[in-house]
């Protein structure tokens, strides 16, 4: 099958709403969006605290967070696998090869991005914003909310960036999800599997979905950065 025929077949699979294909897309979106919804509030709060508070070990935490940016997802998967396997400390929870395990893995992968981007956004905010909130009597929570609201476009860009990273990662999902059809098979693991089987059409169809998602995320980020700069 040549490239043109493969692409045509891939488009046909997408348009015909092939249940197997859309099941994979659904698992991908469910796991990645779920992971982001769970990790965003604590990661954004951590980024805010790192930006606004001075404490012992702060510099070290920032360096570690930035280093985790480049941490290979397959290593995150390996470490999580060891934690969740039967002999691991969390083995009794029987989470290995399940969607929750994939969610946990993606949360770990997205967290440093969210923390570092939020830290940078809050540090880049006008210091008068925080001071104005304080002198007008805002408590710590309201001040934090106000400041995060002032830099919301940068924070939203961080969330989109995190989504871009987790939706396309294959290493961790493969290790802790196990690529089980209809349960933990997501877009990247399915592409890897279908390609090895020689089923290029499904791989290309999923690749198209992944590229559309990546493009949408990039457009959203570009728009948000433009909005942030405009204000």
């Amino acid at each position, binding site marked *: 099958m040549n490239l043109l025929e493969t692409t045509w077949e891939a488009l046909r699979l997408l348009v015909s709403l092939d249940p197997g294909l859309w099941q994979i897309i659904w698992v991908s979106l469910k796991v990645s969006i779920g992971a982001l919804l769970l990790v965003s509030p604590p990661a954004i709060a951590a980024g805010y605290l790192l930006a606004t508070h001075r404490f012992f070990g702060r510099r070290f935490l920032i360096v570690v967070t930035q280093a985790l940016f480049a941490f290979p997802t397959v290593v995150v998967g390996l470490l999580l696998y060891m934690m969740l396997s039967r002999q691991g400390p969390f083995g009794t929870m029987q989470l290995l090869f399940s969607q929750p395990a994939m969610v946990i893995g993606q949360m770990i992968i997205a967290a440093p991005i969210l923390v570092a981007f939020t830290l940078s956004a809050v540090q880049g905010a*006008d210091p*008068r*914003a925080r*001071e*104005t*909130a*304080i*002198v*007008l*009597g*805002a*408590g710590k929570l*309201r001040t934090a909310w*106000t400041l995060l*609201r*002032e830099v919301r476009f940068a924070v939203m860009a961080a969330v989109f960036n995190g989504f871009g990273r987790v939706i396309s990662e294959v290493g961790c999902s493969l290790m802790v999800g196990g690529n089980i059809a209809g349960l933990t098979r997501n877009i990247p693991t399915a592409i890897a599997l279908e390609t090895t089987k020689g089923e290029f059409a499904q791989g290309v169809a999923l690749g198209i979905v992944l590229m559309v998602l990546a493009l949408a995320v990039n457009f959203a980020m570009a728009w948000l950065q433009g909005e942030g700069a405009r*204000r």
Partner: protein
Amino acid sequence: MLLEVAGLKVRAGHTTLIDIGQLALERGRGYLLSGENGAGKTTLLRALAGLQPADAQRCAFDGRAFVLAPYPAALRRRIAFVHQHPYVFDGGVHDNLAYGLRACGASRAQIAGRVAAAAAWAGIAHLEEREAKLLSAGEKQRLALARAHILDPDLYLLDEPTANLDEDGRRIVISLIEALGREGKTLLVACHDRELLSLPAVERLHIAMGRAQAGTPRR
């Protein structure tokens, strides 16, 4: 006395930015803080507003002793600070005016009434629905004064409120500061503005090399 501070020091590393032996502000009086650029006027205002780490041997507000760190939350309602270039939050003028009231848990009805009154006081009632970030420098200064006024503080710390304003903006801001004086508010205003310096019933404080001296009272 409304505010008394003794032995106030602000340091940055090993450098002492300001070292003020005694500062006493009488209730209902206006004080104009003059001095060269870098003399420490803004630093002093920021220290009194709790925005700048500072040490003091003794502080008392309205006869009650307090410490500068941690800054007492109760004082936030009684001491207003307005930046030289006020920051306005993203959103409308109305939301900016309502910010402090929301922070202290005022009801929707209270907020509506007091916001309208504050906007009218500052002459920005016609701007209430406008995006705050789109206001001119003079309008932002009036918004900032109204945003402080709405909380009815006893002491206003104003940092160069007329700097970089056009003539009309300057005159309106000066008239608002005069109105605060007539309301019996205590004002500590850092400024270089000759018109403000020549206002009646104000006392001049001069700050040089981080040390404050009382000037000749003008009545």
